[in-house]
C-alpha cells in the first residue's frame, strides 16, 4: 500500500543579538553557569521584561527574507507551564499575533523542480535555561545563561512530502538565514532547533492523517532519519490495522528510533493570555520598508544574476552562492579579471578543496581577490604551470605570501625557454624509443605519454603547450636521425 508523507517543520532560531530579548544580559554561549543572568532573566520577584529592539530588527529581516507579511501591530503572550528550566513558570511568547505570517521559501522539490513551501508564521519568544542531570550525585543542576535568549520560531504549513524535502527546506532556510547574519544556525550548538510534525495518508486523500510531533533531533541528517523512521513506524501501525496516536515522540540518536514522550491527553494546557508587562509593539510601514531596503541579495537572486552576468553554469553559481562571502570574493575577482569562468573554476575547485582541508572559509582565510587573480594571470602568462600553480596556492594560504615571491623562492617558474625545452623534448624521445616507434606506426595518441614524460622530467615546470609542439616537431624532423 502506498502512502503519502506529510511534514510540517517548526524551527526555533536563536537570534544573535548582543543582549537577551527582555534584559541587558550578554547573549553569549560557553560562559560559566549562571554568570550571564540578572533579576529579569532569572524571573526574580518584582523584575519586569523590556523588549530588545534588535530582536525585532532580526525578526523583521528574517520575515522579509521569507516573503512574510509583517504584522503592523503585535503583542506578546504568556505560555504557562511548570518546569525547572523556566524561571517564571511562563514563557513570554506570541500566541495569536505573531510578528510575521504567511511567507514562503522555494526549495528544490523531490521531482527536481522548484517547490514553494508556505510559512505559516514566525513568532518571537524567549529561550529557557538548561538542565544538566547529574546521575552520580542523583540531582539536576540548572544553568540559566540561556534563559532569555531571543528565539524566532518559524512554522511551515504541512507542505513537505518527504524527508528529503524536509532536509532541503532546512538547507535552504539555513542558507538564506546565513545571508542575513541573524543567527549561527548551528544545530549542534542548539542555535537552530527543529521539530517535525509527521503524518501519512492515502495519496489523494484531502484529510491529513493523525500526526506525531518529533523532537530531539540535533542535525539535519537526524531530522531526515527521524522522519524516515517515523514514516515507517506509522506505516506499520496502519498496515497492522491500528491507528496512529497523536503524541510527541523523542528521537533517540543512538538507537535510531523515536519513543513516545507524551500523548495528546497529557499535553499541557498552556493558558495563553496577553503579557501584561509588555505594551503592544507597533511596526510602522516605513520601518518595514527601510528594513526591506537593507536586506542583502538573497541566494536565489544571486545565483540567477551570476549565471546571467558572468556566464557561468547554474551549478557553479549555486556552489558560489553557498556562502555569501565567497560569492562576494568571486565578484571582487571578477572585477579585476575578465574571465569569470576561470575564477569560478579555481574558487569552486582548488580553493574550495584547500579551504575545506583547513576548515575555514575564503573570507576567513588570508587569501585576497588580488592574490587569486595574480595567480591566474601568472598561469596565463606562462610564468607558472597550471600544475605548479596548485602548489603555489597551498603555500599562499599557509604563508600569506604573494604568488610571485613563492614562484621565485621555490624555483617553480615555468620553463618557456626554447633551448631548454628542446633538450627536454629530445630527451623524452630518446628515453622512449618504443613509444616513438608506435607513434610512427600511426598511434598518434601516444604523443600524450611523451609529453607527460617530458613534464615529469622538468619537475612540472615546463610549459606543456610548448613541450607538445616541440615533441611533435622533433618526431617529424626525426630527432634520432630517422625520417618520420
Amino acid at each position, binding site marked *: 500500500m502506498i502512502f503519502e508523507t506529510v511534514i510540517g517543520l517548526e524551527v526555533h532560531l536563536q537570534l544573535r543579538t548582543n543582549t537577551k530579548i527582555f534584559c541587558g544580559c550578554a547573549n553569549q554561549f560557553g560562559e560559566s553557569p549562571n554568570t550571564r543572568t540578572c533579576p529579569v532573566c532569572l524571573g*526574580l520577584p518584582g523584575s519586569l521584561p523590556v523588549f530588545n529592539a534588535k530582536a525585532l530588527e532580526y525578526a523583521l529581516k528574517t520575515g522579509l527574507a521569507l516573503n512574510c507579511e509583517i504584522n503592523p501591530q503585535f503583542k506578546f503572550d504568556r505560555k504557562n507551564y*511548570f518546569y525547572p528550566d523556566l524561571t517564571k*513558570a511562563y514563557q513570554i511568547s506570541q500566541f495569536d499575533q505573531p510578528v510575521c505570517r504567511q511567507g514562503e521559501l522555494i526549495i528544490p522539490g523531490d521531482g527536481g523542480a522548484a517547490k514553494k513551501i508556505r510559512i505559516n508564521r514566525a513568532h518571537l519568544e524567549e529561550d529557557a535555561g538548561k538542565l544538566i542531570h547529574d546521575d552520580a550525585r542523583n540531582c539536576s543542576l540548572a544553568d540559566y545563561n540561556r534563559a532569555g535568549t531571543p528565539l524566532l520560531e518559524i512554522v511551515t504549513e504541512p507542505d513537505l512530502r518527504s524527508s528529503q524535502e524536509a532536509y532541503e527546506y532546512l538547507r535552504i532556510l539555513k542558507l538564506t538565514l546565513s545571508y542575513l547574519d541573524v543567527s549561527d544556525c548551528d544545530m549542534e550548538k542548539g542555535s537552530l532547533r527543529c521539530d517535525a510534525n509527521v503524518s501519512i495518508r492515502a495519496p489523494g486523500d484531502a484529510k491529513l492523517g493523525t500526526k506525531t510531533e518529533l523532537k530531539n533531533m540535533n542535525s539535519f541528517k537526524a531530522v531526515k532519519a527521524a522522519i524516515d523512521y517515523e514514516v515507517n513506524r506509522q506505516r506499520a501501525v496502519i498496515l497492522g490495522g491500528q491507528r496512529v496516536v497523536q503524541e510527541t515522540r523523542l528521537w533517540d540518536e543512538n538507537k535510531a528510533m523515536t519513543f513516545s514522550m507524551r500523548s495528546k491527553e497529557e499535553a499541557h494546557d498552556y*493558558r495563553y493570555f496577553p503579557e*501584561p*508587562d509588555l505594551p503592544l509593539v507597533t511596526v510602522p510601514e516605513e520601518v518595514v520598508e527601510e528594513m526591506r531596503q537593507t536586506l542583502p541579495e538573497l541566494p536565489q537572486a544571486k545565483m540567477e544574476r551570476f549565471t546571467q552576468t558572468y556566464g557561468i553554469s547554474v551549478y557553479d553559481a549555486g556552489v558560489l552562492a553557498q556562502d555569501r562571502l565567497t560569492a562576494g570574493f568571486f565578484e571582487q575577482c571578477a572585477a579585476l579579471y575578465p574571465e569569470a569562468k576561470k575564477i569560478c573554476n579555481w574558487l569552486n575547485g582548488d580553493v574550495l578543496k584547500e579551504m575545506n582541508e583547513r576548515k575555514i572559509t575564503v573570507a576567513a582565510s588570508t587569501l585576497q581577490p588580488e592574490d587569486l587573480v595574480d595567480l591566474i594571470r601568472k598561469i596565463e602568462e606562462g610564468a607558472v604551470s597550471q600544475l605548479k600553480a596548485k602548489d603555489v596556492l597551498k603555500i599562499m594560504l599557509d604563508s600569506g605570501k604573494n604568488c610571485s615571491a613563492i614562484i621565485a623562492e621555490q624555483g617553480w617558474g615555468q620553463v618557456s625557454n626554447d633551448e631548454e625545452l628542446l633538450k627536454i623534448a629530445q630527451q623524452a624521445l630518446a628515453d622512449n624509443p618504443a613509444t616513438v616507434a608506435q607513434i610512427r606506426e600511426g598511434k598518434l595518441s601516444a604523443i600524450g605519454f611523451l609529453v607527460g614524460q617530458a613534464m615529469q622530467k622538468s619537475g612540472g615546470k615546463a610549459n606543456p603547450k610548448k613541450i607538445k609542439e616541440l615533441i611533435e616537431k622533433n618526431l617529424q624532423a626525426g630527432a634520432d636521425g630517422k625520417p618520420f
Partner: protein
Amino acid sequence: MNLHTLTAHALQELLLNRQVSPADIYRAVRGQIDLVEKKVGAFARLAPAPDFNGLADKPFPIPVALKDNLCISGQETTCASKILTGFRPPYDATVVRRLKEAGALIIGQANMDEFAFGSSTESSCYGPTKNPWDLTRVPGGSSGGAAAAVAAHETIWALGSDTGGSIRQPAAFCGIVGLKPTYGRVSRYGLIAFASSLDQIGPMTKDVTDAARLLKIIAGHDPLDATSVDLPVPDYTQSLRCEVKGMRVGIPREYFIAGLDPEVAEAVTAAIAVLKKQGAQIVDISLPHTPYAVATYYIVATAEASSNLGRYDGVRYGRRVRPPEIRQTPIIDMFEETRDQGFGEEAKRRIMLGTYALSAGYYDAYYLKGLKVRTLIKRDFDQAFQTVDAIVTPTAPTTAFKIGEKTADPLSMYLSDIYTISANLSGIPAISLPCGFSQAGLPIGLQIMAKPFAEETLFRVAFAYEQATGWHKRVCQI
C-alpha cells in the same frame, strides 16, 4: 516635641531650619514603635538602623515604611508569604532606589495580606495587623500594615501598592491619605506582582501635602518598566491650592446603593456639600457598568495572579519543601509540596480561580469576557470625564470591620473593594482621604477619582477639602 506625630513636610521645615536632625526623627519614630507595635503589629519586620551620614543634602531624610512587596536589596522581602521565606532580593525596586536617593530612612517593611490578596491584612503569614483606632478591628488591606503604621505614628509616611483598592481602603479604615496613581505613573520594577495590569505603587501619608511630595519622589518614567509612561512629572505642590471654584465634580449614582453603611453615606454626602460650598459644581453622573466591576476584577486579577505566582516553585529561592514520598516525579512532587505548604488559603483560592479562568474551554467565557467588560468600564469613565473634572465617592462601603468577621466569607470580603476596583480596571488615579468618623469613632474615607495623569486634579480637590475640614488632624489613642 512629638516628632513622630508630625507630617513629612512639617519635619522637612524643621530639618531645613536645623531644629532637628534626621536621627532625632528616627529615634522618635522608633520610640513610638517600641511603645505600640506589640499592640498594632504593623510591621512584617523592622529595618536595621540606617546610616545617618551623608544625609545633609538629601531632601527627605525621613522615616518611611515600605509594604513587604517592595524589593529592598539585601533585605528579606516576602509579601507576607511563607513561600518567600528567606528571599533577599539582590536589587532595589525603582521606588526604593528613588527614596534612598532622596535620603529616606527605611524604618521597616509593613505587614500586608499574603501577596496583597485581601482587604483586611488577616491573610499575612505574620498574623493580622490591628486597626490603631480600635485594636479589635482590621486596618483594611492589603496595605493594612502601612496604613496602621502611619495612623499609629510608627512611621512618618509609607508606600503601599494598590491592585483593587489596597492603598485606598486601608487608608480609609485608618483615617489617613492614600493615593493610587495612574497606571504607568510610577514604575512597578521591584514591586512583587499580584496583577500586573492593575498594580500601582502609591503614597500613604498623614495629609494631602505629604502625598503630593511622596508621589513626586517616586513618580516618573523608568526604562526598566515598559508600562511606565514617559511623561514629565509635574510639581504637585503647585496643586495644593484651595481652588475648586467652577470645577465640575461628578457623583456616580451607582455608588450610593444598598450595602453602603448609612454613617458612611452621611459623611460622604456632607463632604460633597463642603465641596459645593467651596464653589465646585456638583453633577449627578452614571457609570453604568459599575455593577460588573467586582466580577470583572476577580477574573482579570486572579488570572494574572495565577500566572505571576507560578514562579514560586521552590527551585531558585524562598521556601522549598522536600516531598515526603515520591508520588509522581520528584520534581512535580517538590513543586506541589512547596506550593501546598508555602501558600495560604486565599492565595490558593485565587490561583485556582485564575487558572480556571484561563483554561482551555473557559478562556472565552471568563478571561476574554472580563477584558471586554473592563473596556466598557473604562469607557464609562472616559465618557464621564468629558463632562466632569473629578468624581467623588465613598472609598469603602463600611468602616473597619471586626477581625475575623469576614474571613469565612470571601465574597463579603471582596465587596469591601466595590468602590475602589474600577479605578484599577480603568487605570485612572484615585485618592482616599479622611472625611469624618462614625459614632464608634472609626474613620471614614472619601474617594476622589480623576482622568489618567490628572493627579494634580486629585490634589487640588483633596487639599481644598482637607483644609476646609481638618479631619486629618485627629490623632488616635492606642
